[in-house]
């Protein structure tokens, strides 16, 4: 693992409705790590993830992806983002949703296998509207199996998941970190003591 | 002065009503706009000065 960090932020600061969410965030995340963005509600966890994903442009300071700077590839080719909304259209079936995502990420994979791994065998052609919230979250999380990207930005991945769903996702995150990927997720749930965290909402941003 | 008397100037040969109503409305609208702009500026400035004073107060409290 080279020592160049995957993500580097310098004095990242964000203000919304003239309330300062966080400031002076100098943070280095390198490959093989799992980072939890913790903090009370409204501390700016989602905003920070959206900034890193390139969805939110109003911030001060800067952040870069040093490893890909030379090849000036579009960072979005290395990023996988999952918002707290499932991102599925209720009228379509899980299969159709996943096929569209695959086309967007221009990747080839077998969505059926991914859905089966998430215990959704047999639900592939059922419109998402008739799935439960937990099942919809699983369909969204199947993105982690079918799209191969080094950096994962997950916003509240564990919401609406039952016990074995949570363990399934934890296992997948460890597996991804072990294989040299970087996982950044916002949640109240810290599933492993090896997980490092960025705590927002306090006077000072706390890195551990 | 093109007009013989001030009164002729007001009458403007039976077109006075149109000319003066046009200028009156324009002056009103433009004047209103500039007035609102100036008022908004003074309000914004007062807001900043109030913020400065409040911070000065906090600094004073925390040091003593």
């Amino acid at each position, binding site marked *: 693992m080279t020592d160049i960090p995957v993500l580097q932020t310098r004095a990242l600061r964000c203000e919304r409705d003239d309330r300062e969410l966080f400031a002076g965030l100098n943070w280095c995340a390198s490959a093989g790590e799992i980072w939890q963005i913790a903090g009370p509600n409204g501390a700016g966890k989602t905003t920070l993830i959206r900034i890193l994903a390139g969805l939110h442009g109003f911030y001060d300071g800067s952040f870069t992806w040093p490893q890909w700077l030379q090849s000036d590839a579009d960072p979005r080719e290395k990023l996988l983002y999952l918002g707290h909304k499932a991102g599925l259209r209720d009228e379509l079936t899980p299969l159709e949703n996943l096929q569209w995502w695959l086309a967007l990420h221009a990747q080839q994979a077998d969505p059926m296998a991914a859905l089966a791994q998430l215990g959704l065998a047999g639900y592939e052609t059922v419109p998402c509207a008739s799935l439960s919230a937990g099942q919809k979250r699983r369909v969204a999380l199947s993105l982690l199996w079918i799209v191969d990207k080094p950096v994962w930005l997950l916003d509240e991945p564990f919401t609406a998941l039952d016990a074995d769903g949570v363990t399934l996702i934890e296992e997948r995150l460890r597996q991804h970190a072990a294989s040299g990927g970087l996982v950044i997720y916002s949640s109240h749930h810290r599933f492993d003591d090896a997980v490092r965290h960025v705590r927002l909402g306090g006077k000072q941003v706390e890195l551990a | *002065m*093109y007009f013989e008397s001030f009164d002729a100037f007001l009458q403007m040969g039976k*077109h006075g009503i*149109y*000319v003066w109503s*046009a200028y009156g409305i324009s002056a009103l609208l433009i004047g209103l706009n500039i007035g609102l702009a100036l008022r*908004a500026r003074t309000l914004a400035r007062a807001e900043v000065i109030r913020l400065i004073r409040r911070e000065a107060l906090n600094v004073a409290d925390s040091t003593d």
Partner: protein
Amino acid sequence: MLSAVWQTLTRWYHQWGSPRYFFQYSGVLLRWLWPLAIVATMTGLVWGLAFAPADYQQGDSYRIIFIHVPAASAALLGYVSMGVAGLVGLVWRMKMADIMIKAIAPFGAILAAVALITGAIWGKPTWGTYWVWDARLTSMLLMLFLYLGVIALINAIPDPRQAGRAASLLSVVGVINVVIVKYSVQWWQSLHQGSTLKVVGETAMPAEMLSPLLISMLGIYLLFACTVLVRARTEIMRRERKSQWLKEALQ
């Protein structure tokens, strides 16, 4: 020589692009711009109203031109400058560009309304009715709608920075369309009414009518510029009220 000009231009661009520099120097600029604007407007209007000769056809009702034409051209100029500011704001993400759009829009809309109202009032003695679907009045009406669209969009978006950027995009799209709208209205005019009723062609005006018109135009443009600077400073004060340099500037 050219590179020197280019250097000064880019230097100005970066300087005036930063709210801090803009705030300082607009204060200085305003101090002498206001009196100039008021003097120019007063002389232009008084000259046009009291001293310029009457029009042989329309008598004195043509004197409305000294407010109608400046307002109409300032409204158009305002919209085009909003488009340019929008383009600069979108392409180079300049903070000042969004602020300028919010500063120009209100006065532009008022000027479009003034041009519309004075045009309608002028229509009464010349054409006998207040509203005639004349090509120029109709395109001025559409110009007012375009302005109202931008202002409505700015007010509808809570986050001021996002509102600025959305208004930038709308202004750019609007400017492209303003040209097409003007031509389509002119063609539409010829389709339905035959030749347009030329009120008073600017070029055909004798010198003693044209010079007051030019001066009042200059006056209205300067008034427009002053109000835009004032509104821009207000917007800067609103957005930067937590920053240190603003506090020192207002100490």
